[in-house]
């Protein structure tokens, strides 16, 4: 198995064990705050396992072919999942960062991409 796959598998296992451990308060667990409850583009299990592949697939289509569909775009993820308090998907309890910190998977999307949605004039995060 590729090293990458191994890392991915261990990340999934970490998340799965976190789910099992929710019953016990002694085990630390990621904070998953969803401020805008509703339907994501895929079911939760698929999103947890496959969101990196979806984003990578979409990014190549967008950058090279100019295909700007909204369904699997990072901008839409951020638009929906940014915290109401901080306006961002990063931060201690941020939707992306809390899980990535927990699973110890580096999150480098936001070195370049905006971690906050674009605000229309006068709107609050």
């Amino acid at each position, binding site marked *: 198995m590729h090293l990458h796959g191994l890392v991915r598998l261990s990340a999934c296992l970490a998340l799965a064990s976190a789910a099992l451990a929710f019953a016990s308060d002694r085990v630390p667990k990621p904070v998953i705050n969803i401020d805008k409850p509703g339907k994501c583009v895929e079911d939760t299990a698929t999103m947890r396992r496959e969101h990196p592949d979806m984003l990578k697939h979409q990014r190549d289509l967008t950058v090279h*072919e100019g295909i700007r569909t909204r369904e699997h775009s990072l901008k839409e993820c951020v638009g929906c999942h940014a915290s109401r308090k901080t306006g961002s998907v990063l931060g201690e309890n941020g939707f992306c960062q809390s899980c990535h910190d927990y699973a110890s998977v580096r999150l480098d999307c936001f070195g370049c*991409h*905006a971690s906050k949605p*674009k605000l229309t004039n006068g709107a609050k995060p």
Partner: protein
Amino acid sequence: MSTDANEALSRRGFLAISAATLGGVMLAPGIRLIEIAGARAPEQAVSRQVRWGLLIDTNKCAPGCDDCVKACATENGIKDTGHPRTDAQWIRKVELKDLRSGRTHSVPVMCQHCEHPPCVDVCPTGASFKRADGIVLVDRHTCIGCRYCMMACPYKARSIVFQEITDQNPDVPRGNGCAEGCTLCVHRIDHDRQPACVEACTRAGHNAMIFGDLNDPQSEIAQRVAKYASTHIRADLKLNPGVRYQGL
């Protein structure tokens, strides 16, 4: 009876389709909307039929005016980091003077979106690439920041980002360690909007920049290029840039 109804329906359908088709072309006599001609569904890839270009009329471009540069910086989130020598620069104003006649020009110079881009030739990872519609871009996901493209570009159009960047425009991701340059505001073009520099120039009433499809004979830019003399910068290099200058 039923066949009559069907016939009537299909005829009505046919008329509706024809009306829609004609509407696209003949909105008014002699006027054709670029938006309709260039409209592309979001899930449709860019086409080789299109060649985006800019035509800059240097007679209308005033020395000292930097409306396009400011608009570019605002749109793409380029901020002054206090290091003017190394700050990213997507458009710069260049003042030219013919020493014999004393005639001066002031021209905006950005990525010229060459048909044969040297930055693409030298890129070791394939990050610097030309999109099917002629826009030359950097795929920051594969850019390793080697700066070969900066050396190869005869127009000094590429920059590299030296600082961590925060608060980017969500439509324009940019970050530390990646080469970058004018994208012709590709995020706007893909939504049938004009690049920010052209919009600002037109809004301010200078009308020195036109953006459009060079391959579409009906477009304003193609008609202007066909009618008036225009040239490329460093035309001797035969790179066939998409950016043309009139009055140079």
